[in-house]
């Protein structure tokens, strides 16, 4: 409608005809003005105009709200039923209680947790809807709304903004003959750009592979600028630490026993079917006790080596006393269990660098592999019976 009215806008380039029209309007001969009166519908100035887009959004929002209200009521009723079934007070029945009840009433052996039966408030089950991106008149809020990916292109816009600002700054510094401080230079080692999935999550938009590539290229270009450290905060918003999964647990502080010696006990050291616990005393003389026997508890050399390896590695041999109890499994499993327990306990007596070396050497990693069961119809876990076609 705006267009149609604007089409009537007088062209500034045709002065003569226009003058005539204006004069005609003033003189009251009025053919032109009456024509406008007919064609343009009169509306009250106080009436609030709501665009079609907003109307449709409001309708959808109401529908969604009704649906959610219904779901919420159903959830409340279900919760009360469940509490009654479990013989508990429905008023104080919490979400944890619901989870336990569901697990008890509908036991499921499915591996995938998402596939198991669940009962959760509808807000958690149904995805959140996007709020309206435009006001009552239908005018979008974001200036890049019509690109379809406003948040993504906003980031690109910000990058070019920073690039231009930094270039200006660099020029001014060159004019003043000042070099960028090499100590402040942006160091991105140990960081990587956030991956596509987290970027999508951050932007709440789906982006293509090419878009992601473009995004990375833009950031690489931005970080190459000498004064990039000035916008560190902006850049680090889109990076993540490279070693985020490397997280060694803090070593426990050793206890003091009645003799004034430090000691640490590691319980439940697993390897294959063996389970053991290890006590390390510091300072010591290198005495090793396994189930009240010496290192000769293990008859083969390999198992003994296994046991001593963490001590040799950390150079703690003959500096600590070790007492172990171990049961289950065979010699190699028992030796492996004790090896892990000794390594885990030694962390309390060595410094951070050695702990990091132990981690890299794999001493702090539990070995969860266990024997695979035999299958019927075959010889073992994997091996089949000998079979000849004819």
């Amino acid at each position: 409608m705006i267009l149609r009215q604007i089409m009537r806008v007088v062209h500034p380039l045709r002065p003569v005809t226009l003058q005539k029209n204006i004069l005609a309007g003033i003189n009251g001969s009025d053919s032109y003005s009456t024509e406008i009166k007919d064609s343009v519908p009169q509306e009250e100035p106080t009436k609030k105009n709501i665009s079609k887009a907003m109307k449709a959004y409001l309708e959808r929002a109401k529908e969604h709200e009704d649906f959610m209200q219904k779901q919420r009521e159903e959830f409340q009723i279900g919760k009360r039923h469940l509490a009654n079934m479990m013989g508990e007070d429905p008023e104080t029945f919490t979400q944890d209680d619901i989870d336990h009840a569901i697990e008890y009433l509908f036991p499921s052996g499915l591996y995938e947790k998402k596939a198991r039966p669940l009962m959760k408030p509808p807000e958690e089950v149904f995805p959140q809807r996007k709020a309206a991106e435009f006001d009552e008149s239908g005018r979008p809020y974001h200036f890049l709304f019509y690109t379809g990916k406003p948040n993504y292109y906003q980031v690109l816009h910000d990058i070019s903004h920073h690039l231009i600002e930094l270039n200006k700054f660099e020029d001014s510094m060159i004019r003043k003959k000042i070099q960028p401080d090499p100590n402040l230079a942006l160091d991105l080692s140990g960081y990587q750009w956030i991956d596509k999935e987290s970027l999508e999550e951050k932007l709440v938009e789906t982006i293509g592979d090419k878009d992601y590539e473009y995004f990375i290229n833009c950031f690489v270009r931005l970080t190459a600028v000498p004064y990039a450290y000035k916008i560190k905060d902006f850049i680090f918003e889109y990076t993540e630490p490279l070693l985020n999964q490397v997280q060694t647990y803090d070593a426990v502080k050793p206890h003091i026993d009645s003799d004034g010696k430090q000691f640490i006990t590691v319980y439940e050291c697993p390897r294959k079917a063996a389970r053991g616990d290890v006590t390390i005393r510091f300072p010591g003389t290198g005495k090793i006790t396994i189930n009240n026997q010496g290192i000769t508890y293990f008859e083969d050399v390999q198992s003994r080596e296994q046991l001593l390896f963490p001590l040799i590695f950390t150079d703690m041999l003959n500096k600590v006393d070790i007492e172990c109890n171990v049961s289950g499994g065979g010699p190699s499993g028992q030796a492996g269990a004790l090896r892990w327990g000794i390594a885990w306990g030694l962390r309390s007596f060595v410094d951070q660098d050695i702990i990091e070396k132990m981690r890299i050497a794999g001493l702090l990693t539990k070995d969860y592999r266990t024997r695979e069961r035999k299958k019927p119809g075959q010889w073992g876990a994997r091996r089949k019976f000998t079979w000849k076609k004819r």
Partner: protein
Amino acid sequence: MLKRISKTSFINLRSICLSASHRQQQLEQENAPKKLREEVLLHPDYFKVHNLFTVKDLFDARVHFGHRDGSLDERMLPYIYGSRLGHIIFDLDKTAEYLRKALNVTAHIAYRDGVIIFFQRGAQNAYLVEKTAKECGEFAHTRFWRGGIFTNATKQFGCVTRLPDLCIFFNTLNNVLIQHTAVRDAAKMLIATIGIVDSNCNPNLITYPVPGNDDSPASMELYCKLFKAAIFRGKEKRKEHIEQNIYLV
């Protein structure tokens, strides 16, 4: 220059007319808003966009430079002055006329709270255009055009969406050969378009073509400045009229 003089004399005439209409408004108080609308719409240049620039400004911003004459689109012939050293030169008097017409429409759309979107392909000037759009409180699209943003908007945005009321193209070509798809889509959806058309462009689908250089940063800055000023004039007037309670939708 001759044309400009004739226009100024016309402005004097108009001010006489305005004062006449003023007197009449005082007589008919209850019809004031309606009269105002007529005045705004009938006025040849209500927002006075003609004083935003002079032909000299255009010349200084190198708007008269076209592309090489080998790439001339024949539909641009009416707007060109000639060719110099193998390059097309635009007739800036004509450009000024068309640009004023375009600025006038822009100001009117802004006055009616229309949605205005800026288009520009090419990395060189994209940031400038986006910045201008942001400052105006309007919209920009300087990226790859996914087909269907206008023609299939409900699907693309997932809901009923208000489309722009005016598209302003700072260049109408994607690259040297292909026209921006949004020109065609806007024509399909009956959205008015303003386009800076260079000597190798096709002005036929543009509602308000403005012949001129579409890639040098100097001219791009001038266009951005002018359209921004026109939009601000429209919006200011709108605010003023809403405050006085005489704005009528």
